[in-house]
């Protein structure tokens, strides 16, 4: 009894520790991506911890609210942050078990991310700006294609691992069957990577460094946010990117047999690696024309479907 209790406490502590690592290092991932991009294109670029500095600066500023906006706009950053934090509670960040784990928690993961997006879109519409409306429209368009792709990946993981909760899908059970499901895992990693680029507004779907409002998607939706609100939104965005990165890490790096500190070190290394990978994509690819983006997302989903078919034949 005491042994199982201490095991529970240990796994809880390990999950909390991994959650802490993610929360602290999340702003680093976009920074690493930006630095990689700068180096590959022959520039020095801002330091990798630039986003921390930005967040700190924004947090100490005042706020400007558009006279058109209502309480929705004020609520948007708060909901976005809270929903993204909750979504990270169901991902097994230490490679073993998430803080919360129950059957069907993958649906909750997608649901909370969708809640964040819903508020982002409404917040953008709340300003009455045509630019923000445009960004919102594009965001929901691409998200409605990403969501089925993401669920294909979840289904494939569920079949591959035999589990119904994300902790089982991405934890030890998956790696016990590695010899059988290896091709599927490779395909799913590709699929999740492409979907991550689309969902987290990176090149080739969106460009986080663009300066032209007409071409922005995510950036334009936060045009009217300022001060602490903008800080919360930027942090949530970085956290979402790190969450997808964590799923990727769970997919390709077995960590269930490692001690807690090893798993966390690998999590940190993995987050950096994903940041570098995103940066490489950003420096080697141009942005796609908007009508081409659905095809890009569909290719990601097709990879996942291919993996699913391989499993279910």
């Amino acid at each position, binding site marked *: 009894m005491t042994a199982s209790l201490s095991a529970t406490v240990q796994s809880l502590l390990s999950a909390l520790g991994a959650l802490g690592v993610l929360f602290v290092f999340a702003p680093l991932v976009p920074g690493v991506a930006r630095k990689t991009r700068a180096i590959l294109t022959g520039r020095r670029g801002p330091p990798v911890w630039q986003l921390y500095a930005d967040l700190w600066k924004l947090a100490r500023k005042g706020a400007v609210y558009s006279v058109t*906006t209502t309480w929705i706009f004020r609520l948007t950053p708060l909901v976005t942050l809270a929903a993204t934090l909750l979504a990270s509670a169901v991902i097994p960040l230490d490679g073993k078990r998430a803080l919360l784990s129950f059957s069907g928690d993958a649906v909750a993961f997608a649901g909370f991310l*969708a809640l964040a997006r*819903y508020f982002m879109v409404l917040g953008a519409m709340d300003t009455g700006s045509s*630019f923000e409306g445009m960004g*919102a429209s594009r965001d*929901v368009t691409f998200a409605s294609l990403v969501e*089925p792709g993401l669920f294909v990946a979840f289904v494939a993981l*569920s079949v591959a691992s035999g589990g119904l909760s994300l902790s089982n899908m991405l934890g030890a059970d998956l790696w016990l069957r590695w010899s059988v499901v290896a091709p599927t895992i490779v395909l799913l990693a590709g699929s999740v990577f492409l979907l991550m680029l689309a969902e987290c507004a990176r090149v080739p779907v969106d460009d986080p460094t663009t300066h032209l409002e007409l071409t922005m998607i995510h950036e334009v939706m936060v045009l009217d946010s300022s001060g602490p609100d903008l800080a919360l939104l930027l942090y949530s965005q970085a956290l979402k990117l790190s969450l997808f990165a964590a799923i990727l890490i769970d997919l390709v790096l077995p960590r269930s047999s490692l001690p807690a500190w090893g798993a966390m070190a690998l999590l940190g290394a993995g987050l950096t690696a994903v940041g570098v990978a995103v940066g490489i994509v950003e420096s080697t690819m141009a942005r796609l024309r908007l009508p081409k983006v659905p095809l890009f997302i569909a290719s990601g989903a097709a990879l996942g479907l291919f993996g699913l078919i391989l499993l*279910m034949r």
Partner: protein
Amino acid sequence: MIAAVFAGLALLLAAAFASWVLRRRPSADAVFLTLALLGCATLGIAALSVLVAGETSAFVMRAATPGGRWVFAVDRLSAVFLLAIAMIGASAAAFGTPYIAPQRSHRPMWFAHSALAMLIAALALVVTAQSIIPFLCAWEIMAIGSYLLIVTEDEEPTVRRAGLIYIVATHAGTLALFAMFASWSVYATDWSFGALAAAAPSLPNQGAMVLGLALIGFGLKAGLVPFHFWLPPAHAAAPAHVSALLSGVVIKIGIYGMFRVVSLLGGPPPLWWGWTVLLLGAVSGVLGVLWALTQHDIKRLLAYHSVENIGIILMGLGVGSLGMRYGDVALTLIGYTGALLHTVNHALFKSLLFLGAGIVNHATGTRNLERLGGLARRLPFTWLAFFVGATAIVGLPPLNGFVSEWLVYQGLFRAAHSGELLRLAVLGVPALALIGALALACFAKVAGVVFLGSPRSASARDAHEADRSLLVPMAALAGMCVLLGVVPTLGVDPAMAAAASVAPAVAAAMPDPLAVARNATWVGAMAIALLVLLAMAFALRRRMLRQREVRAAETWSCGFAGASPRMQYTSSSFAAPLVSTFGRVSGVVEHRAAGTYHSHALDLVLDRLALPAWEHVHRAALRLRPIQQGRLYVYLLYVMVALLVLLAYLALA
């Protein structure tokens, strides 16, 4: 508890009668409303007690009734629907009475009130009747009552046309039901549902005929694609509280019918039926929400969302019945529970949305999305209630829509683990995800274009908040949506008990039927955690802004000074990327010319299939016209010829 149902029915009939008797008195509305609410409350109590205590009681009419014994009973399945009828009926009556009161000068009010009370009573009768004849009678009263309410504003040609389409569709469905019951009762000893259930094993082909006809008959009522074509015009034409009742419960009676047939058949439905239901569900869901995105009329848009949600319910029913066939106990129970819970949830949030649309229509005089905007400031309470409904229908935590969609998802996920062909059902998962994401796009559009931003027309600018009597029913419905989302077990447990009563043999084999309910507790915990985190984030921001300057300014329009409300993104432009992604399936017809753009959405089934087919029928019918001579002796001649032909047939055969 059947006595309480009859008491409720009596109160509703009294309400209908009172509104006629007192039609010239000023107290008519108050008396009607009191009686109707009491009636609904009695029905609701009856349903709740069955759901909680689980006892079912039956009443058998002893008088010599046509068609054998007339049995009335409330079991768990009936009770789920009866509860929805009571809740939505009460809200519709409470909202509708003040809502149509201003029309008293030019319309007989008592008629609309009586028809509403009769419709609610008929709905309650349909779900409690356990014999063919009373079921079909109640079914027809329900159909006619809905028709009378749809054509309330019959001075409009579009309303008359919508009514005509509805009445044709509903009678086509009734015809299928007649055929279904006729082919079934041949094998039964009498016409009560109990006898039909007893006869189920002797039906040929595992009851293929019955199930097929049930899918058509009940499908026409439920409005699944391709039988949905009557639904958008009818919902758009009816007054708001009637649309709420139609979408909230009338179409759900189709779902009730399917569940009832499955439960009467007892055994697992055949494979083809389960697959067909699952497929039709996925198709209805995706096409329903896609077509909703293209609408300009807020009520038509909401009506297409009913098609979508019927699709989600059918996916639950389909995966459940497949699970039954393949012997997967958990799957059956979860699928059925998801379908039943979503039925109730959809009844709640969809009626809420229709009531909200009614207030918008009332306040601005238009239902056209392109002419609205900025109503959040002018109708703050309506907006809050509508927002809750919109968030719930998208299936987002922490509201009730998420709980039932989560259940349907779980059913589909479990199907993936089957070793048999059942695992193909897992393809429903991406379909459901697509439905959810498109619904998010659509309601972000509605909420954003109607309530947020700046007003796009003078009528939207001058809108005023509705009277409190209209807001109370909406608040009640919104409260239910929140409650069932934050405490999911409140809904999941009774729904699961009802699902178990549909498949008792399966449910008995389930090792731990409460496992799913325990998981639902986690969903509730996450919902509460969200609220806690929100409060913490709120406090954090407040702290950060305490010593800082908070200013108000114009919306940043990228340096351009002359921004006007007309430059806002419109409903059409918001939906444009999705419409072009889905191409011709979305059914949008665009008209472009220099400086103008106009688009309208076709209903691909009605405009491309049903109406052209009707044209052909009409033309063929014209050829038969010479038969009609208008002279009595000619008709007598026809009768005689027919008689002779029949006699000859008998003689030869």
